[in-house]
């Protein structure tokens, strides 16, 4: 059996802790041994290089080992998590999955074989050059999830040079480019991945305290929940050195609150897309939303205020949609940005812009103001069709304590009057009890349909 560079690296880390799962420590030696068991299991089941394998689960030791074994076996890997379980069958059909390994919450597993030949030209191309593949599904809530097919060996290349790694909490799910990036970065550089049974603020804070977590990769929505829950004050988080946030725009009010609550922690914005990979980024400072995009392996340009990127780790294409790349390989991220020298600030998705009588409104800007209002726990802003102005701004708001709805609406509008142009002030305000995010702690504006 050929020794993959990553296998050698894991073996070199020896007895160092690699993974903490249910408070049990797995060393790199344990992980290397389990990967060996999995490679034998793949062979025993006739899972040859090029086979498409779905890994369904969370960051349990067996799931991590199986994923790495498939990677070293040059399989095409489809990571799936419970949050998308309802769509698994469809996703597996799209990805032409031949084998599905499902892991339960106790890390027990079962393997199912499916009679699906691999016919898609992008997958055939990966097989012909014996490259491991990765298929990631977009988490968009409208329409069919798009399946990005990537060459896993290209993604892996950036982890070859040795770099420092730290004790990291596995917050982003394994089917997300950010989650996989975290897992591979930490394991290839000898750090520790700490898993939690759920992603509630107190569970996360307790894990940070118990395992002296240094790096928390997360989302702005989770950080806001962290502030609202008060979990920060119930736990000792002094071990934290770096919090990275991405996947959605960060409201400046949330960033300011986190910065004030965790003054010893460096806050860094990340930027990545499953279509492109994770870009190196550099935040101007912890309290700043301005970031510089690194150039190693990536190029970027701004066209009409929209960010375009060309990447060496870009996907080969979608399995179920036309290629989004232009003739020169550039990808339109649809993210609207402001530019200040070498720095950019992400304003939000172009498709989420609200058009009020020709005036453009960024939902994130309005949400940022609403979140500064006393008694507002969370706020989601979206467009509402209107016969007079085409669209108006509509806001769904969750209160932290009961308040008379009409009095609250008056208070909200008065608060907005001094802080927003009038066309940006929500014309429609709905007070809701439910959470504004899904399991991925990413704000769901589609859920804000009025």
């Amino acid at each position: 059996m050929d020794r993959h560079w990553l296998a050698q690296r894991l073996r070199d880390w020896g007895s160092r802790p690699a993974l903490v799962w249910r408070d049990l420590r797995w060393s790199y030696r344990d992980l290397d041994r389990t990967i060996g068991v999995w490679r034998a299991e793949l062979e025993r089941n006739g899972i040859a290089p090029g086979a498409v394998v779905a890994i369904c689960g969370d960051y349990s030791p067996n799931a991590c080992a199986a994923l790495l074994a498939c990677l070293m076996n040059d399989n095409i890997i489809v990571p799936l998590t419970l949050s998308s379980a309802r769509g698994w069958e469809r996703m597996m059909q799209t990805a032409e999955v031949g084998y599905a390994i499902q892991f339960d919450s106790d890390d027990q597993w079962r393997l199912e074989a499916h009679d699906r030949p691999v016919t898609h030209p992008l997958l055939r191309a990966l097989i012909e050059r014996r490259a491991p593949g990765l298929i990631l599904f977009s988490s968009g809530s409208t329409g069919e999830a798009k399946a990005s097919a990537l060459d896993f060996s290209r993604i892996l290349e950036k982890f070859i040079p040795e770099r420092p790694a730290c004790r990291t909490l596995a917050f982003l799910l394994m089917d997300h480019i950010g989650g996989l990036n975290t897992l591979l970065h930490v394991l290839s550089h000898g750090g520790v991945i700490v898993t939690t049974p759920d992603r509630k603020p107190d569970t996360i804070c307790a894990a940070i305290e118990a395992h002296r977590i240094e790096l928390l990769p997360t989302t702005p929505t989770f950080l806001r929940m962290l502030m609202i829950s008060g979990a920060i004050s119930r736990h000792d988080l002094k071990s934290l050195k770096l919090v990275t946030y991405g996947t959605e725009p960060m409201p400046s009010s949330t960033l300011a609150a986190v910065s004030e609550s965790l003054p010893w922690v460096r806050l860094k914005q990340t930027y990545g897309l499953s279509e492109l990979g994770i870009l190196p980024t550099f935040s101007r400072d912890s309290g700043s939303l301005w970031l510089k995009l690194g150039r190693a392996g990536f190029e970027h340009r701004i066209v009409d205020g929209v960010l375009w990127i060309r990447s060496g780790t870009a996907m080969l294409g979608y399995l179920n949609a036309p290629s989004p790349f232009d003739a020169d390989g550039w990808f339109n991220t649809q993210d609207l940005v402001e530019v200040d020298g070498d720095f950019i600030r992400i304003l939000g998705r172009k498709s989420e812009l609200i058009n009020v009588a020709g005036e453009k409104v960024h939902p994130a800007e309005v949400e940022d103001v609403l979140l500064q209002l006393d008694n507002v726990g969370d706020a989601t802003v979206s467009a509402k069709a209107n016969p007079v102005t085409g669209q108006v701004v509509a806001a769904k708001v969750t209160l932290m304590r009961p308040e008379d709805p009409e009095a609250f609406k008056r208070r909200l509008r008065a608060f907005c009057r001094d802080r927003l142009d009038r066309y940006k002030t929500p014309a429609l305000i709905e007070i809701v009890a439910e959470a504004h995010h899904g399991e991925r702690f990413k704000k769901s504006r589609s859920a804000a349909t009025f």
Partner: protein
Amino acid sequence: MAEGPTRAELEAVICEKIRMALEERGGDIPAIRGADTLNGALGLSSLDLAIVVAELESALGVDPFSRIVPITSVRSVDDLIEAYLKAYLPHEPEADEGLVEAARRARDRRARQGA
């Protein structure tokens, strides 16, 4: 169809929402009468009117402007009241004027060919 509010009830809700929009804009709030033109006498801007319509849809649960009444036909407070009254009435689907016109042209063509 469920029985809708009376004209007086609708008038009260509509005037309240107009008053609210005027309050938010600041300045003096005039007495609101049925004959008052929305833009002229009351000085409602397009944004004010958009807010009023959004609030009314939220409060009343109906939107007369999606199919029944063109918003461009609404000039006064009374027009607004009439529009919402219509929204509560059972109504026939409107004839597609384009289709009616196409049918008329086809009839004319057949008549000419037959001549």
